[in-house]
């Protein structure tokens, strides 16, 4: 009993400490003149952080604070918010990509895929892909680099990797990096670039897409799963109501952090539609297979793909 109470007290302290980093002032009103006066009217370019506008330089730290705050309860919260459907989406995503070669390699270059999982801190997608490559395609060479801007999410992923057979093997490694600028990854070195429920939070999405184009080998695939726009108005109504009423509440009750989940639903609302995002992928230079995206659960999430073209010499 006493240990329980100490633990919960500690957890409360722990979370509030995390939150302090995220919120410099306890005051966060979206349509308030005070806030507008606070913002410096300098020449700093603005971007959106949920429904509020913040200077571009500030978005990174704010998003960082959100994810530091949610890292520990990430999986439990995802299950509650999506009613478990996020696991189906992620399984489908990995299965449709079919990572790993089931055929013997002809050249050294074909030996295993080099996968870069951006914003995959907790390793959700990375472990699934390694499992698929190993168990389905019997490919022991395919390797995943998990890259995340947030050290807390990476720490969570490292902790989870202890339970997988990939811990401390060359098939899995963790890198803390900003996806808009990755000088440590050479040009044309990656087979598959994935970003799952992450690109929404990037300050400059187009820069991240251009960087993806740079690091991918010709013929390499950019695959992205992200929340998108629901096309059925009835489902959309229910979905919006769930997003804006239930999710911040669940966040408050379960993770003790309402603001981070308020940001989450606002950032979903601000993300471009399927067609707009496909245009951005094309603008980065990718070829689009078929219609370019696949809607999941009526468009709540969508899988986008692009292939880097081969330049014939």
């Amino acid at each position: 009993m006493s240990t329980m109470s100490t633990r919960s007290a500690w957890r409360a302290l722990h979370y509030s400490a995390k939150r302090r980093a995220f919120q410099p002032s306890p005051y966060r009103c979206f349509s308030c003149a005070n806030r507008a006066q606070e913002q410096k009217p300098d020449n700093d370019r603005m971007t959106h952080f949920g429904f509020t506008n913040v200077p571009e330089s500030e978005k990174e730290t704010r998003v960082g604070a959100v994810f530091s705050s949610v890292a520990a309860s990430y999986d439990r919260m995802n299950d509650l918010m999506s009613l478990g459907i996020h696991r189906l989406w992620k399984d489908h995503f990995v299965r449709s990509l079919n990572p790993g070669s089931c055929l013997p390699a002809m050249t050294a270059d074909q030996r295993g895929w080099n996968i870069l999982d951006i914003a995959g801190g907790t390793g959700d997608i990375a472990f699934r892909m390694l499992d698929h490559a190993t168990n389905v395609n019997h490919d022991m060479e395919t390797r995943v680099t998990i890259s995340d801007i947030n050290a807390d999410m990476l720490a969570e992923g490292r902790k989870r990797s202890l339970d997988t057979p990939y811990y401390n093997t060359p098939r899995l490694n963790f890198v803390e990096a900003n996806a808009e600028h990755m000088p440590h990854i050479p040009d044309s070195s990656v087979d598959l670039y994935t970003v799952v429920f992450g690109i929404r939070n990037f300050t400059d999405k187009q820069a991240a897409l251009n960087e993806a184009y740079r690091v991918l080998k010709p013929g390499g695939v950019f695959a992205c799963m992200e929340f998108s726009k629901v096309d059925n108005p009835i489902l959309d109504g229910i979905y919006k109501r769930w997003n804006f009423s239930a999710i911040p509440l669940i966040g408050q009750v379960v993770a003790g952090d309402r603001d981070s989940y308020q940001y989450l639903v606002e950032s979903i609302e601000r993300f471009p539609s399927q067609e707009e995002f496909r245009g951005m992928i094309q603008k980065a230079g990718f070829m689009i297979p078929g219609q370019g995206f696949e809607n999941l659960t009526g468009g709540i999430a969508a899988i986008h793909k692009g292939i880097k073209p081969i330049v014939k010499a």
Partner: protein
Amino acid sequence: MSYLARTLPKRVFTPSLAQSTRQTRALSTLQSTPTRTKHLTPRTNKPRHPLPHRTYHSALHARLPDHSYTNSQTAILTSALSHVPAHGFSATALTLGARDAGFLDVSVQLLPRGEFDLILFWLASRRGLLRGKVEEGGLFRRIAAEKGKDVHELSVEERVRGLLLERLRMNVEVRDVWQDALAQMSLLANIPISLTELHALTSDILTLSGDDAVDATWYTRRLAVSAIYASAEVVMTRDPTPDLVETAAFVERRFEDRKALADKLTGIGQCAGFGWNTAIGLGRSWGLKI
């Protein structure tokens, strides 16, 4: 003209009709003065505004491409086809094709439907080849020579049969794996596209054979040829003869059946017509006001 205007209901008498009536009247009154008629001619012959999009078929329209795959997709699919006899219409064949075309293993993501894209590409490209053979002109000459006839003596029916068999012979190299392909095509999600492709093939076969029916038989002919082709494909997968002799015999029998069925239907139709006419006549002779 004025009589016509009077008898027509108001809403039919649209401005365009009014204009044409006026023009006709002008022409009729001016017929005696050829110089002015000449002056009028360009106006009446003025080309109408071309419609932006026509939904009907015409032999004058440019032909649609056989398939809508991009260059990179076609490169992968073309090299994958060479692996089909060994590996079937499978993901393995696609991956090998991607490697041959200089792509990575992961590049098969270019084809969202996977193996089914390979099957569709096979169907569409063979259809294009068939058309190419006919347009070269050699195919019908060969079919005619086999029957000991001149090309011009070939009937539409004989041409249809010849083309159908020619298309079936194109499948010889993949016939061992074709049942897998048929299974893929019969999956619920794939049925609409498969049927569209079957229709495109039969439509091509009939058009190339010179079938120019524009009545209800347009549909029945396509249905009949589709049914014969689809069933012959199944027979082909179990045909052990090297030159598909058994399949050819099967196709012959089906065409005979079709003819017999058509004769029967015509007979039934005629019989019903006679019966109806007799009943009417009988009724009239009894004084009914029919």
